[in-house]
């Protein structure tokens, strides 16, 4: 995850408390989604950014997951994300996200 974005996540966790944050991802691939999810839960696995070794355990979801989809206006979702459901490997993304959350999410 971009180093500047990592810094912002860390700062907001300090400001609002990790339990009050939710991270929503739009990554194009399962691998990228998993990497971002791991960064905001277990810490930056590439040891490159401010979240290295920082275990925020944040709630994190990808937009194609049902947990996100079910909470938002369906028409808006269809307009904004609908087409990408045909393009992205949804199963792969869901599998990565579920895996990471299962291991590292605290909330």
């Amino acid at each position, binding site marked *: *995850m*971009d180093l500047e*974005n990592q810094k*912002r*996540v860390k700062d*907001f966790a300090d400001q*609002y408390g990790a339990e*009050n*944050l*939710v*991270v*929503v*991802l*739009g*990554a*194009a*691939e399962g691998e*990228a989604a998993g990497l*971002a999810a791991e960064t*905001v839960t277990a810490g930056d696995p590439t040891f490159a950014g401010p979240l290295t070794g920082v275990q925020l355990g944040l*709630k994190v*979801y990808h*937009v194609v997951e049902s*947990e*996100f989809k079910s*909470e*938002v*206006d369906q028409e*808006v*979702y269809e*307009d*904004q*994300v609908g087409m*990408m459901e045909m393009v*992205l490997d949804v199963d792969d993304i869901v599998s990565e996200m579920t895996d990471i959350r299962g291991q590292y999410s605290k909330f």
Partner: protein
Amino acid sequence: MSLFKDKKVIVIGDRDGVPGPAIEECLKSTDSEVVFSSTECFV
């Protein structure tokens, strides 16, 4: 229970997936506040 009710949301979009502003549009219908939104570009 709602995932987003009263929560602060951080959006990390992807230029080749779903970009930040598109995710924000979806979140408008929830009871949450987007505190940060960005779109990453890896190419």
